[in-house]
């Protein structure tokens, strides 16, 4: 068993209204100095050892992310 993290973030050039809303709200709460926020998704998967990197990439590309508007990254972590 391994733990795999898949990060999915909106592409740089794509509008990210969620991140923008967070960025706009921070100064109102007295938090200064944060110039940009982007909000994406984080998936944590419990994966059998037999599942190879290629499969994980396909899962990320075809399923967890929408490659038209999102970038993704897969990494195995200590669980």
């Amino acid at each position: 068993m391994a733990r795999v993290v898949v990060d999915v973030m909106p592409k740089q050039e794509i509008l990210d209204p969620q991140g923008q809303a967070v960025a706009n709200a921070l100064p109102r709460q007295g938090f200064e100095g944060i110039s940009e926020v982007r909000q994406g998704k984080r998936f944590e998967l419990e994966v059998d050892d037999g599942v190879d990197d290629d499969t994980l990439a396909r899962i990320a590309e075809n399923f967890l992310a929408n490659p038209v508007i999102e970038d993704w990254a897969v990494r195995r972590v200590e669980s």
Partner: protein
Amino acid sequence: MSAAGARIGVITFPGSLDDGDARRAVRRAGASDVALWHGDADLHGVDAVIVPGGFSYGDYLRCGAIAKFAPVMTEVVRAAGQGMPVLGVCNGFQVLCEAGLLPGVLTRNSGLHYVCRDQWLRVDNNTSTWTTRYEPGAELLIPIKHGEGRYVAEEPVLDRLEGDGRVLFRYVDGNPNGSRRDIAGITDERGRVAGLMPHPEHAVDPLTGPTDDGLGMFLSALDTLVAA
């Protein structure tokens, strides 16, 4: 105080949607409605406050998470502490939870879809400011319309809510969102601050809603204000 002398404020955040409907419901109940603005740290002397439905600030981070920092909310929290009746409907319920006036949090519907439908509720508590007009056990038909209405709180909190009779309404005839213990609405310790996912302001006239079952909530609060 006369009914018409009772002034009930309705907050408008950027992204509020049911503020006009809440004000209409207040008028229909016979009270005067007062528009309150999110950026204005002033309740303008109202006797009660409604935090209406909608998508305050787009609800982008978590529903209600950004609205709780609005200047007007500081005043609402202060006034609630002094016993002012406050009602949060749908997004308003989410805001009150985020602001700490009510326990728990509203999360993504278990079906993962936004749900708009007419929903049966059972009245569990008719002693809160907002529910005195109902018979305990009465069933009401009121619209729900939300994507994040699954009420979640830690087990001891849920036990305490039930033990203290602070569950106002429960879903019957199907739980639409996976809320713990079918909870649709709750109140605070004093029974003055209430929050619910269903929309009583959309059930005040059978022409535009399924019933007028929701009117009782506004009339209940008005009774308290008039008696005071």
